[in-house]
C-alpha cells in the first residue's frame, strides 16, 4: 500500500480511539507520533490505537507504539492496541515486544 497515513480520531466515553489507515513506515510514523502526543496531552482515561486498517508496520511504527505505551503509563492513561493483523503482528513478534501490549480484537472489547 502506497498512500499517506490517514488518522481518524474519535472519543467513546472516557476513551480516545485513533485509527490510522495505511502503512506505518519510516515515511509515515512521525504523523501518528504527533497525534498520539496531542492525545496524551489531553489526558483521556484510555487511549486505544486501532490497527485494523494498517497492513504493514516497520520498526519505526513499533517504536512509535512503545513511545505511546510508555508515555501513557507515565500519565496514568490505560493504553491498548486493537485489530493487530498478521503482517503487523509479525513485526511485534520478531522484536519480542508483543507481550508488552494489551491487545484486543475490537474497540468494544478494549472499552470494557
Amino acid at each position, binding site marked *: 500500500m502506497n498512500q499517506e497515513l490517514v488518522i481518524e480520531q474519535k472519543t467513546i466515553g472516557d476513551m480516545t480511539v485513533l485509527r490510522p489507515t495505511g*502503512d506505518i513506515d519510516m515515511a509515515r510514523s512521525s504523523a501518528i507520533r504527533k497525534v498520539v502526543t496531542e492525545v496524551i496531552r489531553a489526558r483521556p482515561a484510555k487511549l486505544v490505537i486501532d490497527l485494523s486498517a494498517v497492513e504493514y508496520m*516497520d520498526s519505526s511504527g*513499533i*517504536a512509535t507504539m512503545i513511545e505511546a505505551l510508555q508515555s501513557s503509563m507515565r500519565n496514568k492513561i490505560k493504553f491498548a492496541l486493537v485489530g493487530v493483523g498478521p503482517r503487523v503482528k*509479525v513485526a511485534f513478534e520478531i522484536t519480542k515486544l508483543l507481550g508488552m501490549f494489551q491487545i484486543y480484537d475490537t474497540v468494544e472489547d478494549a472499552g470494557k
Partner: protein
Amino acid sequence: MVRKMERDPEISIRLFSDPHLLSTIRATVEGLAKIIGFTEKSRGLLMLAIDEALANVIRHGYEGRTDELIWVHLWRVREPRGIRIIIEDLGRSVAPEKIKGRDLSDVKPGGLGVHIIKETMNESCWEQRPEGGMRLTLVKWLSPEELQNVTLSKPENTFP
C-alpha cells in the same frame, strides 16, 4: 554498481533515498518472493528486513538526505532455493563489526532494524565498498515446508 555474480540480477532498481519510495521496494520484493514460493508470513518478514536495511541506509548512511542514490538487486537462488538481495549505497561507511543489533530486554524505541534483519535472513553481510559507501548482502532460503509446497505445485513455479 553490483559485483559480477554467477548471473545478472533478475531485478535491479536504482532509487533515491526518499522514505516515501520504500513501499515500492517492499512491493517488488514481495512479488519476487511470492514467485519463489515464500509463504505470506515469510514474505512479511522479508519486506520488513529489506525495509529496515533501506531505512538504515537513509537514516545513518545518508543522515536523512532524500536525494542520494541507493541500488537494490534481487536474485532467485537455486541451491538452496531462496532469494538474494544486495543493497548498495554511497553514504557514510561504517566498519561492519560495529553493526550490531541491540539487547531487546531493554524495552525502548529505536535500534531494532539490525535485529530484525539478522533474525529474518539466513545470511546478512555488511561490507565497505572500495569506491565508498556500504554493500549489504541478504539471503533467505525457503523453509523445508515451503520447499515441499513449491515442489508439489505447478510447473510455472520452476526456475528458468
